[in-house]
């Protein structure tokens, strides 16, 4: 076992084998796989030879076989002339749900967690593999495993289809739906698995994920039953008749998965490297599809306010959450990150949304929510020009959306300013305290004024006063009901409305100024030159 062979390859050394040796099939396959992601190959090798996967595979084969035989034996001879397809397919659908919705996503999570536990991320980090490749490799390997498991069910689905009572679209919709759920849940699992944490937190995360996956499995079971039973659920009715919304929803799902992948990759990247820009680009992609989905919803349902406000509120919640995470980023930029920035100030201003740091994050979130608001207003106006509007006219919608945006800016700006102060005292604080600060600002900004108003001036909440300006729901309601039409709802007068906009406008302007000051300073003054990579070879 004493080392003897020289490590360096010497092409002039003696070759014991002929130079034109015939390649084996194994070598050919190995060469062909060179263009694949190495993580995908590693994970596929590991999973395919793991006991857990082999057991799952054979148990499913056994269950499918027993199901088919039992169905025939119990229902013979009726099965020869009656349509047993829906009941048999529903059973197979349920059987598929557990591996696709629970087993595969949880295996993805464990795969990430084991890398962290065994300290093998370090080994991967010093290779030329990028963090995104690691995450994608793991995800795709698990989907390959899902496809292998799907192959177990394919004969069963064909059997169910041949029993009659279900059409081809219904038959195919079950695996398609479950694969989509599997991909989405695995993306979330991979993100959760990438979070750095202690052993206790790891156990807690595992339990939370498992609980969430089981809940998702129950919902999926219900949807599978509805898909096969010809249910009249609203979403099943809506999607075929509104293909544009279906496409927008599909794109939104894909971009959200991409965002989860980018965030997981960012978690695996050292903090000194720019791990923010990729997440921001994906966020921009999600923003684009959210805007498309919102626009399509408003366009498709112009007369019903139910479909107008909830999307706006959901988008606000999404951007507030993302905005909080963005403003929690560290403000200092390392030499590596600075090298990626535009060398001149004006291009840097234009690219500020993708520059890591809290000020750029604030600007990105504010601009994102603002552009979404403008798109929704434009779509609403466009719908108004092509058809009659029965209620919730575009002016009213625009007023509500604008007020919503102003309050968004005020709240997020306050979160950032509060967070900057806290970070000065606790420089190593992470993202979760930032989320707690955001929750605190929301509660203090909404609940405290409401309680004070009710205690000091009982009945004030019934009318609108500038005192209540920070209370998001009350202000939005006031804006919704009265802003443009000066309706006497809530006892509000035209003067109150003027004061409302005056106070909100002044507060938002102040918050914007305080926040953007650091951005401008950073963009124009912090452009220290960084040496380019040296070319040595």
């Amino acid at each position: 076992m004493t080392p003897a062979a020289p490590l360096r390859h010497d092409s002039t050394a003696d070759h014991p084998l002929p130079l034109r040796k015939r390649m084996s099939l194994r070598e050919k396959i190995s060469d062909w796989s060179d263009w694949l992601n190495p993580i995908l190959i590693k994970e596929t090798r590991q999973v395919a030879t793991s006991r857990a996967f082999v057991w799952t595979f054979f148990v499913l084969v056994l269950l499918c076989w027993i199901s088919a035989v039992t169905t025939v034996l119990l229902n013979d001879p009726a099965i020869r002339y009656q349509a047993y397809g829906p009941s048999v397919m529903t059973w197979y659908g349920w059987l598929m749900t557990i591996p696709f919705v629970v087993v595969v996503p949880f295996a993805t999570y464990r795969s990430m967690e084991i890398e962290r536990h065994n300290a093998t991320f370090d080994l991967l980090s010093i290779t030329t593999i990028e963090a995104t490749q690691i995450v994608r490799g793991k995800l795709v390997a698990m989907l390959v495993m899902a496809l292998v498991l799907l192959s177990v069910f394919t004969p069963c689905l064909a059997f169910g289809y041949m029993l009659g009572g279900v059409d081809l679209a219904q038959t195919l919709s079950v695996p398609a739906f479950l694969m989509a759920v599997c991909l989405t849940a695995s993306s979330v699992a991979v993100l959760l698995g990438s979070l750095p944490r202690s052993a206790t937190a790891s156990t807690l995360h595992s339990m939370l994920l498992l609980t969430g996956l089981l809940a998702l499995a129950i919902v999926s079971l219900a949807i599978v039953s509805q898909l096969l039973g010809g249910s009249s659920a609203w979403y099943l009715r809506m999607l075929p008749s509104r293909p544009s919304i279906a496409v927008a929803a599909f794109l939104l799902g894909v971009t959200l998965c991409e965002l989860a992948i980018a965030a997981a990759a960012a978690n695996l990247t050292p903090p000194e490297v720019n791990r923010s820009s990729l997440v921001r680009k994906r966020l921009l992609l999600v923003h684009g599809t959210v805007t498309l989905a919102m626009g399509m919803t408003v366009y498709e349902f112009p007369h019903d306010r139910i479909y107008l406000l909830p999307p706006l509120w959901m988008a606000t919640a999404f951007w507030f959450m993302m905005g909080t995470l963005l403003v929690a980023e560290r403000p200092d930029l390392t030499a590596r990150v600075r090298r990626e920035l535009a060398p001149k100030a004006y291009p840097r201003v234009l690219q500020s949304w993708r520059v890591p740091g809290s000020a750029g994050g604030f600007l990105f979130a504010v601009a994102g929510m603002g552009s979404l608001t403008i798109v929704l207003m434009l779509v609403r106006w466009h719908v108004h020009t092509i058809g009659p509007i029965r209620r919730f006219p575009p002016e009213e919608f625009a007023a509500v959306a604008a007020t919503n945006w102003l309050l968004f800016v005020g709240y997020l700006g306050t979160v950032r300013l509060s967070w900057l102060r806290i970070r000065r005292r606790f420089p190593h604080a992470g993202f979760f305290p930032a989320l707690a600060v955001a929750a605190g600002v929301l509660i203090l900004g909404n609940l405290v004024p409401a309680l004070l108003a009710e205690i000091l001036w009982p009945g004030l909440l019934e009318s609108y006063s500038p005192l209540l300006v920070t209370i998001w729901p009350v202000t939005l309601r006031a804006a919704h009901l009265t802003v443009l039409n000066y309706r006497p709802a809530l006892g509000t007068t035209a003067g109150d409305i003027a004061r409302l906009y005056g106070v909100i406008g002044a507060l938002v302007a102040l918050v914007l100024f305080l926040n953007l000051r650091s951005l401008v300073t950073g963009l124009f003054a912090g452009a220290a030159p960084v040496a380019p990579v040296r070319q040595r070879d």
Partner: protein
Amino acid sequence: MENTVTATAAAIEVRHLSRYFGATRAVDDISFAVRQGTVFGFIGPNGAGKTTTMRILATLDHPTSGEAEVAGFSVVSDPEQIRRRVGYMPDSFGSFSYMSCREYLDFFARAYGLRRSARRDAVSRTLAFTGTEGIADKPVDTLSMGMRQRLCLGRALIHDPDVLILDEPAAGLDPRARIELRGMIRDLADQGKSILVSSHILTELADFVDDIGILERGRLRAAGPLADVRRRFGGKRVVELAVEGDSADVAVWLQNHLDTEEITCHGDHFCFICPDDSSEIESDLLSRLVAAGFRVKRFGIRESSLEDLFMDLTEGEVA
């Protein structure tokens, strides 16, 4: 204390490197260089900052201040370039379950971008060099400690790097495996690779390193060629003496006739450090002992060991 070493054609160059974790100064303003084609032994007690320094050099961590260059590239701004040129062996094995040794090396060859025959050749050469050909198809999680370390070294070598950073490669190995590993490291240095190696086993390091750096509480206590460091910080010769008869008389005689601080006595065996200017006493000592009537069984003078040097320079404190 000497905190700076200059070297020509350095494969690794560290300048005023610091790494703080909150208030803890894991690495505190250290500077040293690893010359090309040499082995640099990095020694220090637990918590001295060896692993932190090595992780920074392997681009797994970031310095709080200072600069380090590996193969001519900065760890701060050009980590991607360094990763292509460095092989890193951490103190933990980091195994993948359900994978054979060959698959393990094949994976890392792919991860470093080796393709087709280059990849296959790299795997074969590495298996041969590390002596793991016989266990190539054995699962990695069933290997003995010695074989794991060999495989771990193979993984660090798979892309034929110019610089190797080995963190405690001999930890947990039996004597035979240690000797074999030492031989492999020396072979690699002879092939022109620059190696930074840390170890707790000082006697082993002394046998195959060219340069050493002694680290304690994040500070570099001494660094440079081993002989130079011995001369600058040790330079003492140790006299070992064994006599027949009453050892108490010998002890009294030595204390009366020699100007040395401490004389260690184990039975009839004496050990003491000669004063720096005592060459005359040394040459004369044996004849004076015999003349005094002592029956000398053994008499020898040796250089102070790396262990002596380490104990002299460190105080056993951690950061």
